[in-house]
């Protein structure tokens, strides 16, 4: 896909940058000296093994966790993000891995939670119309927006969470494993959406375990390993093997061994075919 991510330009229009961010939970150092830059109109993928600290980084950026030390710069101003409201005010919208929806409320209420239209006398018709617009844009297959989100499937819930992040014109959107539960069409729709967001000049941070998705839409890949930066690649200039090596920390790892095995097996299977 788009392989050209001109790094010099990224520096001039840098939206968000983190320097030496640390965060620990008791004895566990979840993040150690993390650096991260996101430019306007850039899609940055964050990859890493389970427990690498990706979601913790997301939570630091969205005001759920306070970092222990380090600086966050947003639009060239040093900022602190003490709570989720601060993040929303700055224009950082997040789709959390655990989605953070209220099961007892319906789809509309969840979409507009915290930014209802006409607070003193809710404008339900307008909110419902806007909800349908957003959901159709994501090709959501949701039968009714007036049923509690508890009755939605995992992927439908994920779509609701993504739709919610689009309300209120954010400047940076953070997606923590947005396509994990999605069907084929919805995944494609989310990837299209990410590209549209980039065209609109937003910064997008996307966390994913799916290398194909990452390579399809991301401009840069940032690898985290055991809570530390372990590589920052421009997508067009790196092979999947290099990324996997950075994720697992070695060229000889479970993934390469498995691929080698499969190669061997398919080679012998080919032989079988030719013999008969």
């Amino acid at each position, binding site marked *: 896909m788009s392989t050209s991510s001109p790094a010099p330009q990224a520096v001039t229009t840098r939206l968000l940058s983190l320097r030496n961010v640390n965060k620990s939970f008791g004895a566990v150092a979840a993040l150690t000296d993390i650096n991260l830059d996101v430019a306007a109109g850039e899609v940055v993928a964050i990859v890493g093994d389970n427990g690498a600290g990706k979601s913790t980084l997301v939570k630091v950026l969205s005001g759920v966790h306070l970092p222990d030390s380090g600086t966050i710069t947003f639009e060239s101003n040093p900022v602190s993000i003490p709570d989720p409201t601060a993040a*929303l005010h700055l224009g950082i919208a997040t789709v959390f891995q655990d989605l953070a929806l209220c099961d007892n409320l319906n789809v509309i209420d969840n979409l507009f*939670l915290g930014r209802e239209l006409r*607070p*003193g006398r*809710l404008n339900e*018709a307008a909110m419902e*119309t806007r909800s349908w617009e957003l959901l159709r844009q994501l090709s959501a297959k*949701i039968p009714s927006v007036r049923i*509690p989100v*508890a009755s939605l499937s995992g992927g439908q819930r994920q779509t609701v969470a993504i739709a919610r992040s689009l309300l209120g014109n954010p400047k940076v959107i953070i997606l923590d494993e947005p396509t994990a539960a999605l069907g084929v069409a919805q995944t494609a729709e989310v990837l299209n959406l990410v590209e549209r967001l980039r065209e609109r000049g937003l910064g997008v941070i996307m966390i994913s375990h799916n290398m194909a998705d990452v390579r399809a839409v991301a401009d840069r890949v940032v690898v985290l390993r055991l809570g530390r930066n372990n590589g920052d690649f421009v997508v067009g200039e790196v092979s999947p093997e290099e990324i996997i090596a950075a994720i697992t920390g070695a060229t000889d790892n479970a993934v390469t061994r498995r691929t080698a095995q499969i190669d061997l097996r398919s080679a012998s299977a080919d032989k079988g075919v030719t013999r008969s």
Partner: protein
Amino acid sequence: MITSTLHATLPSDLQDERLQNRLGLRGIIPGFLDKVRGGDLGALPVVAGLAIIWTVLQILNRGFLSSANLVNLLMESAAVGVIALGIVCVLLVAQIDLSIGSVSGLSSAVLGIAFVTNGWNIWLAVLLAVLSGAAIGWLYGQIFNRFGVPAFVITLAGLLSFLGLQLFVLKGQGTINLPFESPLVYFAQLAFVPAWLSYVMVVAATGSLFLVGYSRARERRAADLSAQATSVIAVQSIALLVGLGFAVWYLNQARGIGWMFVFFVALVLLMHYMLTRTKWGRSVYAVGGNVEAARRAGINVHWIYTSVFMACSTLAAVGGILAASRLAAASQSSGTGDVNLNAIAAAVIGGTSLFGGRGTAFAALLGILVIQSISSGLTLLNLDSSFRFIVTGIVLLLAVTLDSVTRRSRTSHGRA
């Protein structure tokens, strides 16, 4: 072909082919059954329970459903009903306030001391009593938010401390009688809505129900959304008109409807509006459903808790004033005894979930009617309070069991 014509005529929110059509008059009953099967019982259990209780009590004592007794029953419901309304709010955020009895007792003591002992202007005394309730709720909110002490413990401490404070400030006087000519006592004992005005109020209430429903439907139709057919709204309004009209006529055979009960219903309606049509109400339900999600959505969770505790103890203070006015006295025993238990039981029996995020303001109204009916019926049968406690306890247990069972059913039907 069929689907394409369907799509052309259906409003934009009903186009999913998996949706069954529940529009119009014919959709009322199937739609209702859908909800009940899914475990969304709404007011059904408490209304059914009330019908059963009334039938049984009427069979046991012919006087129970007499106009005079019902008039009295409604008057007796108002004070504790107002307190139960506050409990509905705290239960919605999955918290509890055990100190409402003590706060209501303290509030009546404050009223008595300021108004009678110190000769203050009566409305100033009322204001002071109400504000003391609000201040207590604010204090609870601060302790809850700052230190994370469970509300159960904070308000248990409040129960003891404010009871102690009430006993202390009334020491030496024991009971303060409110003068019979004061407007409060008149309001709570003798002020009844004139018959003609009661009918005007019924017509106004149903008329505004129709207008609200109609204008909402029009707003939705203008936005190309499905809306209730005017015929449905009309049928609902007419049913309400007939039902309320009959009730009011029946009550007017005796003294009629007390203003104090009207005041209680007005508070219920106001709370209903606040909970369903304002941002604050949405936030209350959100906090009760998933605090962390509410926080991440940018809701000021601390303020929601504080405001809910304040609403609860303010309403408890108002309930205390009403109770003192009804008795024409504030005493060391005001707000003690079963006030606490009845108010909490009323909210739960009315259908407010103990698990948070589920319930309506009407729960307070329906729940207190159940409790007061049991109390009044057993008094008519000359049974003492021991029986009242037993029966109320059983009804409460039934209500909570139902809550737990429907919660399970909701989970399996995806309406958790």
